[in-house]
């Protein structure tokens, strides 16, 4: 049981996992990163873990975890060559891990606790599937909800990882210059720092659909949306071919997937060229699909669509607010707006305003010892423009802010606006409270069910 094979040089990857040992239903937390600078074998009796996880902090740690004092081989050295250094962020290949994990498992072994979507592929042998699903019970309260999944696909160097980093990790676009190529599928769970609650899967540029280690059926089946990124500065014919291939394959598996095409890197093009490129790509892509008989797939070429719509009460119109948005502060995606049409410039101005507020709050808004967050319950901002418009920002929840445009005259009745806002904020909080209650009760139910299903020796029964 203690085979720890030597690993090739300089491999770092990051992640945190909770492991559940089947022998002792204890959970062990392991920060895992294996970095060896040469083919040395790790000391005997220690186990090395390679995990694919969502490390929000991107910490690099060298660590090991043991269970029952036995070492577990995490992967064969041949596969180890596939692991490469990846700066900041979780990396790892889901299926490969599982496969190697199950390969190495003898009798008792420690399955990895998948905190995310339980429908992971388990192509490996033996204890794979059973172990995996059994682990569900020990997961985090909110992750028992199946989070919607978004896939980011596209050719090499089209900008997928940059998009993800800039939108959800507040990386500055200039820094993305230094991002390295994604080698494996990278899963990020965007929910800790943002209201928007889903998983993003960032795929490497060249993926082979026929590679048996990737179970695309499983991946596509659980997907809500597929975003295909096309580099508009490059020749996009190959991208279109790939898009066609990807979309047809995905559609066959799951007809409910929303397909979006991001025409990326348009900052380098002139305005005319932008429109022309967009039209061309739209035309060609839809033509290809029509040819294949899949007219029902409708590609959309927009960026930054609103994620969902909630009603904005017409109470706001009475306060003299011209336009209002409910923004997710971190990603600057607006969750909701009122019924008047949205124009790009207004939206961009609101984004810029949020930037200014957060940046200034980062400089002055922390307490003396550095405690506190820049964006907190009392965050407010008022910006008066010289065209009699006033931009008003107010915190709604930890992640959300209301940004509205008010006429200067109406702003003189600030008291009324504040009161209406107060009601609105209370309502939003109530909505979220209801949601939390539902989730909690679901979790409690799960626990009860599980208890009923537990076998005498403590090993939980597999949930169907």
């Amino acid at each position, binding site marked *: 049981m203690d085979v720890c094979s030597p690993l090739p040089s300089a491999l770092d990857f990051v992640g945190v996992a909770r492991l559940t040992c089947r022998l002792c239903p204890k959970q062990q937390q392991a920060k895992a990163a294996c970095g060896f600078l040469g083919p040395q074998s790790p000391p005997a009796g220690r186990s090395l873990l390679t995990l694919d996880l969502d490390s929000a902090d991107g910490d690099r740690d060298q660590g090991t975890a043991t269970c029952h004092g036995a070492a577990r081989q995490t992967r064969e050295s041949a596969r180890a060559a596939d692991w490469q250094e990846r700066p900041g962020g979780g990396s790892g290949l889901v299926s490969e891990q599982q496969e190697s994990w199950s390969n190495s498992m003898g009798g008792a072994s420690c399955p990895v606790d998948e905190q995310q979507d339980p429908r992971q592929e388990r192509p490996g042998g033996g204890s794979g599937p059973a172990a995996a699903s059994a682990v569900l019970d020990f997961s985090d309260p909110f992750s028992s909800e199946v989070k919607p999944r978004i896939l980011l696909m596209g050719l090499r160097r089209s900008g997928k990882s940059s998009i993800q980093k800039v939108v959800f990790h507040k990386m500055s676009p200039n820094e993305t210059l230094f991002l390295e190529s994604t080698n494996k599928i990278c899963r990020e769970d965007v929910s800790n720092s943002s209201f928007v609650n889903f998983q993003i899967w960032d795929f490497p540029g060249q993926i082979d659909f026929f590679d048996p280690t990737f179970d695309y059926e499983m991946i596509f089946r659980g997907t809500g949306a597929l975003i295909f990124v096309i580099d508009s500065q490059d020749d996009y014919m190959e991208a279109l071919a790939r898009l066609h291939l990807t979309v047809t394959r995905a559609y066959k598996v799951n007809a409910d997937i929303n397909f979006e095409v991001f025409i990326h890197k348009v900052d380098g093009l002139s305005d005319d060229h932008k429109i022309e490129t967009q039209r061309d790509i739209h035309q060609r892509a839809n033509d290809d699909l029509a040819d294949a008989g899949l007219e029902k797939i409708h590609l959309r070429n927009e960026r930054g669509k609103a994620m969902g719509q909630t009603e904005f009460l017409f109470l706001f119109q009475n306060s003299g607010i011209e336009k209002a948005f409910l923004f997710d502060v971190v990603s600057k995606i607006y969750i909701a707006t009122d019924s008047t049409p949205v124009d790009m410039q207004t939206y*961009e101005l609101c984004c810029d305003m949020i*930037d*200014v507020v957060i940046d200034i709050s980062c400089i*002055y808004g922390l307490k003396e010892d550095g405690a506190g967050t820049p964006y*907190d319950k*009392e965050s*407010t*901002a008022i910006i008066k*423009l*010289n065209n009699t418009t006033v931009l008003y920002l107010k915190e709604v929840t930890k992640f959300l802010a209301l940004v509205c445009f008010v006429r200067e005259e109406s702003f003189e009745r600030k008291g009324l606006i504040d009161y209406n806002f107060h009601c609105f904020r209370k309502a939003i909080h109530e909505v979220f409270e209801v949601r939390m209650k539902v989730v909690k009760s679901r979790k409690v139910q799960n626990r009860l069910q599980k208890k009923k299903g537990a076998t005498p020796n403590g090993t939980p029964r597999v949930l169907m």
Partner: protein
Amino acid sequence: MEESDSEKKMEKENLGPRMEPPLGEPEGSLGWVLPNTAMKKKVLLMGKSGSGKTSMRSIIFANYIARDTRRLGATIDVEHSHVRFLGNLVLNLWDCGGQDTFMENYFTSQRDNIFRNVEVLIYVFDVESRELEKDMHYYQSCLEAILQNSPDAKIFCLVHKMDLVQEDQRDLIFKEREEDLRRLSRPLECSCFRTSIWDETLYKAWSSIVYQLIPNVQQLEMNLRNFAEIIEADEVLLFERATFLVISHYQCKEQRDAHRFEKISNIIKQFKLSCSKLAASFQSMEVRNSNFAAFIDIFTSNTYVMVVMSDPSILLTFNLECYVLK
């Protein structure tokens, strides 16, 4: 300082207004002199071709955003622009094209013309330059010319395009360059800054440069201090209105971030430019959270002020047009 609108600024012409002689004086008359109340200071901007001189100048004084500077072409010979600063100060910027033929010219036939009466020399080094020897050679020639013609000039060296260097190496590389430059500049003294148009370091350098040019800046600071003490603010910053460079500040207690001045300049300038896309500009701003409140408002016809309070329960409305800064 007038701001040209977007069509005009895309052309290669003066990035500032032309100075008109005062009323009554015939135009073209050689005898006219700027009114005494306006002080003219000559600023030389030199450096190798492509090092970033015109880009920097456009961003600070002509409201370009960093991305727009891509469209700028090579500067031919010297470009003059007059930038009005703080009402009664005029910066006479000489943006000298850095191509070899021009440089040779500056040190020979145009030597006196260029290097006389200089208040500030700004020399720009491209951190990625492969011809360090040549750069240093030109720099030294400049210094010689300055020593002869304007020995009291202040020298600033900007190590530019630092964004192209990996973050963890920036300090190291800059320190090396700074030492070399200090050594080469003797007996003259030079101040070195590392800059990039993509972050706030540009504002730090130019704030310091402009600070050297403001007359009676001490008085300004004293007035600001009085003002701050009256309103019991934690920190007060004074910005020049068009460029948003910090020209003076007062703080009554230690703040955590030593780079906040240039960051704020950058943040507000960027926001100002975003507003201008909607053909609007902002007049005032108030940002709060539970730990602080910051107010930015027009102060005098040429300045903005930013007041930071850590007691956010104080409600402050500014009405300070009557407060005149000398």
